[in-house]
């Protein structure tokens, strides 16, 4: 069962590579675009720290580390899931969804993973490079368990991003115009890359526990740089990822049932 899905996923990868090779210039240009925007965010951090030394307990290089990690997580997420989620509403509108439902496969697997955006991996590497540079400036060398933990928590953050976006994308089953909502998710990334210390009150509560953008990147980075306030932060990331994944699965099933019964 699992080998079958792995083999299928391998085929989808090969397919994506062939597709990207067809538009080589465009592929490279998109990487340039992502770099530009990444540079833009970093320059914003630079400008802010021209006028202050610390935001809460975050120094300049801690924030650069955070932004690098945010880029790494966001781009990896984009490589695997983003395009697929944004295309869901198009699949439903054009009726191509029916074709996927007919295949003897888990439909969510296919819909979520059928395309790989290879440029995302390249951009993710640039995020990693910025992280290494920031760690050098901080004069801090993380231990192996910290790096492994960082990667695991990042994967969890990616699943959290994916669950939230897939939930939003599933609303396309109910309204044709869900695309605006899905693209609106893009602005959420803007919060994920900011230090949690910059927020307080309702805003902090909302983006930590309800729509947990402030833990997706903050928690892995704090583990990496040995600045976790308590292990509860990891616990919450784990719990909220699980909860949002389950909610997205339940909503997906309800939506799918509605879709299949409406066409009969």
């Amino acid at each position, binding site marked *: 069962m699992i080998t079958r899905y792995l083999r299928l996923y391998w085929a989808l990868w090969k397919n994506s590579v062939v597709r990207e090779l067809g538009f080589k210039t465009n592929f490279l240009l998109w990487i340039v675009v992502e770099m530009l925007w990444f540079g833009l965010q970093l*320059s914003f951090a630079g*400008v802010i720290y021209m006028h202050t030394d610390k935001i809460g307990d975050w120094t300049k290089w801690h924030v650069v580390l955070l932004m690098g990690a945010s880029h790494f997580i966001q781009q990896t997420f984009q490589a695997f899931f983003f395009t697929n989620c944004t295309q869901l509403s198009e699949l439903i509108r054009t009726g191509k969804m029916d074709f996927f439902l007919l295949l003897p496969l888990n439909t969510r697997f296919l819909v979520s993973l059928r395309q790989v955006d290879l440029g995302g991996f390249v951009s993710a590497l640039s995020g990693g490079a910025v992280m290494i540079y920031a760690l050098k400036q901080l004069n801090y060398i993380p231990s192996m368990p910290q790096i492994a933990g960082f990667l695991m928590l990042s994967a969890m953050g990616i699943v959290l991003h994916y669950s939230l976006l897939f939930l939003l994308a599933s609303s396309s089953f109910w309204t044709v115009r869900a*695309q605006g909502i899905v693209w*609106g998710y893009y*602005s959420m990334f803007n919060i994920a890359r*900011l230090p949690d*210390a*910059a927020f307080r009150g309702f*805003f902090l509560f909302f983006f930590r526990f309800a729509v947990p953008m402030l833990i997706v990147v903050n928690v892995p980075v704090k583990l990496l740089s040995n600045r976790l306030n308590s292990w509860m932060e990891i616990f919450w990331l784990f719990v909220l990822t699980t909860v949002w994944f389950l909610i997205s699965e339940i909503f997906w099933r309800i939506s799918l049932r509605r879709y299949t019964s409406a066409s009969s």
Partner: protein
Amino acid sequence: MGHNFGVHKYWHVINIGIQNTLVYRVNFFFKSLFGFIPLLATISLWRAVFAEKTPGDTINGYTLAGMISYYLLVMVVDALSAVAEDDFQIAGDIRDGKISQFLLKPIDYLTYRLCLFFSGRLIYTSVAAIPVLAVIFWFREYFHMPEHGSTLVWFCVSMVMTALLQFFISYTMALLAFWVLEVSTFIFMLFALEYIAGGHLFPLTILSKPLYDLLHWTPFPYQMFFPVSVFLEKITGPDLWKGLIIQFLWVIFFYLLARWVWKRGIKKYTAVGG
């Protein structure tokens, strides 16, 4: 008929544009709602920066209230003048050959698109007005209202020019579709440049002074920073006049450039077509 008909047909385009975009009002509403999230986050960040300082301190002339007002006005100017889908639609029209029909009809494509842009902004602004005003009301103790009535007049004048500038630049950019297959990468690159050099990300004057002195000759500040600063009364007197003239010249420049690029593009388009 005659001249009257000429104006009349574009009214018709505006009408159709309004009806078409009304369909998207829910989309617009969500878009503006989501758009606030980064804005609120940025304001939070600056608040945290100012929290480290003694009350009343300024950052290159910006108090906390001034900084918050700046970002609130960025939101207003953006709602009034940002090019939404227009550039992608224009590029799509060219790529799919839909512009052929405009070559046959007595309709000027640039005026046609300008009408659609205008009606799109009208609907977007009216839908976004409720959340925008709510956010301004929420921050009312920080929000800077102009002291002089004339400021509002100059703000409106520069606002109209900002919208035209935004439109002509995006229009010209979209015309690249005559030569390249995929223009979205170029659109996003330009957008990134506008975002930082236009003052979307932070007020340009908190950078070094020489850098701003250089930037204010480029078109970018007139897409955002200039009208915002006019409203905040940061640019007054001779600087205001100078700014308005530079802005006006850039509008004319990009209008002429748009016309010229269109002419070149059509030449290539028809050559391929027949």
